[in-house]
């Protein structure tokens, strides 16, 4: 099928296709290295230029010898009838791919779909990652200074409101009910209840008159003393006692609490956690704590099996 060198004018009788050659691949590598070199270093530019020139000349030499044009074998135009290979064609196709079961148009279809899928995946995966990722990664909770311990008299709840994320302003204001329980052994004990109702997240209110006249502030922290008989939610009437245990209503567990630490006699509030129930009171309370869960989720018993994995908080 190869043309002899003297055959300068290719025959017009048959279609011709370029023969197989590896030189263009080398040429492409050379051009790529040449362009990348401008970013990386001049050595790579020179290397790329050399590769490009070498492979270009090899390819041109090949073309000049007339070795590149091979006569394409005649292809029967495809129709719906013969493209689906229900029966093998009566005449086996000639040429190097004789016996291949995938016809040309099916191959083109599949490769278009496959390449399209790969390109689509490459483009959409990073976007999807950015859509989902930020909501779950790098969450974490920073400690927040609620002021000196002396601001919290023993046995009294303080309605404590603070800006948990200063960059977001008012929307990140968080309310917790903080009670100093006195010393447990030698260490101070606090009860810090989250105001987020564990039914569906409405703000729980203390059942008792807040002494707003005695309101104090420390930096961004608002402190209002109150002596509640318990806590109640205005949305769906879940009720809790002063340890956060549910006493009535639709809530599935006790109020969430915050971890805390004492640094230089200041009370620092930390990460929140969920509580199944509390036995006992004040400093002696035994808190059955779990990971931080969304409102409405049971954290103990059979129903907690519905929420086996919690997103990272």
């Amino acid at each position, binding site marked *: 099928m190869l043309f002899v060198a003297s055959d300068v004018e290719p025959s017009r009788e048959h279609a011709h296709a370029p023969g197989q050659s590896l030189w263009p691949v080398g040429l492409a590598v050379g051009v790529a290295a040449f362009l990348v070199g401008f970013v990386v270093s001049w050595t790579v530019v020179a290397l790329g230029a050399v590769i490009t020139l070498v492979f270009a000349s090899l390819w041109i030499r090949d073309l000049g010898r007339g070795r590149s044009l091979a006569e394409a074998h005649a292809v029967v135009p495809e129709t719906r009838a013969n493209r689906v290979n229900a029966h093998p064609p009566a005449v086996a196709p000639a040429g190097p791919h004789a016996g291949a079961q995938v016809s040309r148009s099916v191959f083109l279809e599949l490769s278009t779909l496959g390449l399209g899928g790969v390109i689509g995946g490459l483009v959409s995966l990073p976007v999807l990652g950015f859509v989902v990722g930020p909501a779950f990664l790098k969450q974490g909770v920073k400690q927040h200074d609620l002021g000196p311990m002396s601001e919290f008299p023993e046995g009294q709840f303080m309605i404590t409101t603070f800006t948990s*994320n200063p960059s*977001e302003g008012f*929307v990140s204001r968080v309310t917790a009910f903080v009670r100093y329980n006195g010393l447990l052994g030698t260490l101070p004990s606090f009860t810090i209840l989250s105001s987020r109702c564990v039914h*569906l997240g409405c703000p729980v209110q203390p059942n008792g008159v807040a002494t707003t006249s005695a309101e104090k502030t420390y930096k961004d922290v608002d402190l209002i003393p109150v002596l509640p008989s318990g806590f109640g939610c205005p*949305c769906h009437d879940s009720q809790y006692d002063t340890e956060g245990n549910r006493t009535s209503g639709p809530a599935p567990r006790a109020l969430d609490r915050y971890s805390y630490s004492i640094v230089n006699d200041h009370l620092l509030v930390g990460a929140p956690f969920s509580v199944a129930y509390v036995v006992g009171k004040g400093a002696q309370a035994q808190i059955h704590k779990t990971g931080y869960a*969304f409102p409405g989720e049971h954290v103990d018993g059979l129903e907690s099996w*519905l*929420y086996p*994995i919690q997103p990272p908080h």
Partner: protein
Amino acid sequence: MASRPLSRQERILYPLDWLEERSGLVGAVRYFLLRNVPGDINWFQTLGSAALTAFLVQAVTGIVLAMYYEPGPTTAYPSIQRITNDLWGGWLVRGMHKWGASVFIILMFMHMGRVFLFGAYKYPRELNWIIGVLLLALGLAEGFTGYLLPWDQTSYWATTVGINLNGTAPFLGPFIAQFLQGGTAINANTLSRFYAIHMLVLPPLIAGLIGLHLYLVIRLGVTSPPWSKDAAGSGPPPEPPASTREGLTRPAPRPGLERGGGGG
């Protein structure tokens, strides 16, 4: 080209002919608007068009509101106040959008009721019922995402409850909730993502499904009321869709097995 002078009517219609010859659009519009419908249809069958109109009102007023609304945690509420109190006509456009949202949902439900009571969801229109249900779900999602945007106490706590409701779904619920609020609590990300979903994701989906919905209405025709003398089934059966006659996935039906008329 004949040199006969054009009559007055021909001169008026000439631009339409020009367009039709090059695009076929005139015929398409005629096919879309000038259809035969059953002689005894009634006013209840305009509820779908009414819902479509309500959607168009939401789209137009929403575009205008987007020109002034600023979805930031410190700017959203002031920008709403500015639209309502300071800008000329802002109270009207915002009111149309706010109340039109409820009108849109109510009209969709009424349209759904009409289709149900008339039995218009039956063969061959089942697919259009399903598309309608998707439209209703997307409309409700528009309501949920739009409710947060005024960024006042009502919208904040309503969205809190709405997101936490999602959080109670088994297994994936907590992840859905955290995805919706873009973090572990409602924050600035929640507002901007609700805004993006409200104006960039859901409306094009709704518009596309409305297109599909109308295509099926036109392809399958309008149903008669159930009390019609021309009731469904008494006439010749609807022409089977092309895919049941021939095509990609199934062989052409054998002669003698075509759908019979009447009965069914």
